């Protein structure tokens, strides 16, 4: 496997890391670390979906980083949530969907990590349940129940249920 084929998943790697880390600087550091890990394991990686394999490394690197930074994150979480120069939607999207987009982003960012990751992998990366199960290292049934609970929380946050409780 060449480095170039790994680099073709850089956007997906960065998108996942950005959602899981919550700020651009940490996301970039995590992607960097994940690519080094991937490279170290590239010769001996398991067969199968290369994208899912790389995303699992990114995901694990995010969790490692969270563990290392638990204390510091607690201190400046609010500060990072609202500073976001990373997204680049088109001007048309901004005009039409700007408000909704911000609300969706905020709702996703408020999900617990275990729910956020399945939402990002399913809704933004289009992974199948099987691929998500591989990335997150849980059974497919767990993917389904987490996704279902995550969506219930998102619907409540976005008031898509017509205001019903």
């Amino acid at each position, binding site marked *: 496997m060449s480095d170039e084929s790994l680099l073709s998943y850089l956007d997906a790697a960065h998108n996942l890391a950005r959602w899981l880390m919550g700020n651009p600087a940490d996301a970039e550091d995590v*992607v*960097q670390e994940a690519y*080094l890990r991937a490279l170290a394991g590239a010769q001996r990686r398991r067969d199968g979906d290369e994208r899912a394999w790389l995303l699992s490394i990114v995901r694990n690197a995010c969790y490692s980083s969270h563990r290392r930074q638990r204390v510091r994150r607690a201190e400046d979480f609010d500060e990072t949530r609202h500073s976001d120069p990373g997204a680049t939607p088109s001007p048309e999207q901004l005009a039409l969907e700007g408000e909704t987009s911000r609300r969706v982003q905020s709702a996703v960012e408020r999900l617990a990590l275990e729910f956020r990751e399945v939402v990002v992998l399913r809704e933004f990366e289009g992974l199948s349940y099987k691929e998500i199960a591989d990335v997150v290292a849980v059974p497919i049934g767990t993917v389904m129940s987490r996704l279902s609970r995550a969506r219930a929380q*998102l619907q409540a946050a976005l008031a898509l249920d017509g205001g019903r409780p």
Partner: protein
Amino acid sequence: MTCDGVEHLVDAYVDGELDSERALAVDAHVAGCAACAARLERTRALARTMKTAPYFRAPEALAQRVRATTAAASATGRPRQPDATRRRQSRWWLWLIPVASAAVVLLAVGGLVSRRAAPDEVTMEAVIDGHVRSLMAEHLTDVISSDRHTVKPWFAGRIDFSPTVADLGSEGFPLIGGRLDYIDHHAAAALIYKRRGHVINVFVWPASGGVPTHATRSDGRGYHVVYWTNDGVAIWVVSDLALDELDAFAQKLDAATSH
């Protein structure tokens, strides 16, 4: 199909993950049930709304940075571990770009002679660094369990070899858990044991030759390392435990993992 059934399957239905038989059953129920039809529509509406979320493409600077450092790692064969203690917004990696360039130039010039110390010396430093890192970074374990039947399967799919996990609790060395680590340029299984208050890291990876059989070393910082190869596997044991105790642990571990 019942309303409960639809509630259970509506996400998988919208995601196209249902087999056709169950998808048709959902269709049939929804056609005659206003509540479930509304539920389905809400789920679809959420899916549409989610598409407005920002997608964070990798900035070009990150692409350059990843290229530079993966090139550096390929050139030297030793990926660098990012510094866990860096400050937010730091750009510690900038210096890697000239390093990568220099490494590439050195390779291009040719005749690059390894300037590394003896392999076991380098690995010993890496093993001790890995041990210290595991204690400092709140990252001692990825899987916490004293049950070797939990720890061993955890590594499946994460690394492509299967470390032998021994239960030495009855010998006074309880198993704490496992962790994925990178030592030198190996993906390594790290098994964590304890002896009283002391942490023992056992790093395991497939042996690639050149590792001497059973040797014991100490470094100036109070860490002790015992290492050996067994059936194509390199095993490095590191701790601040007294050397004779660590060696006793190593012998029990070797005995328990040899067949």
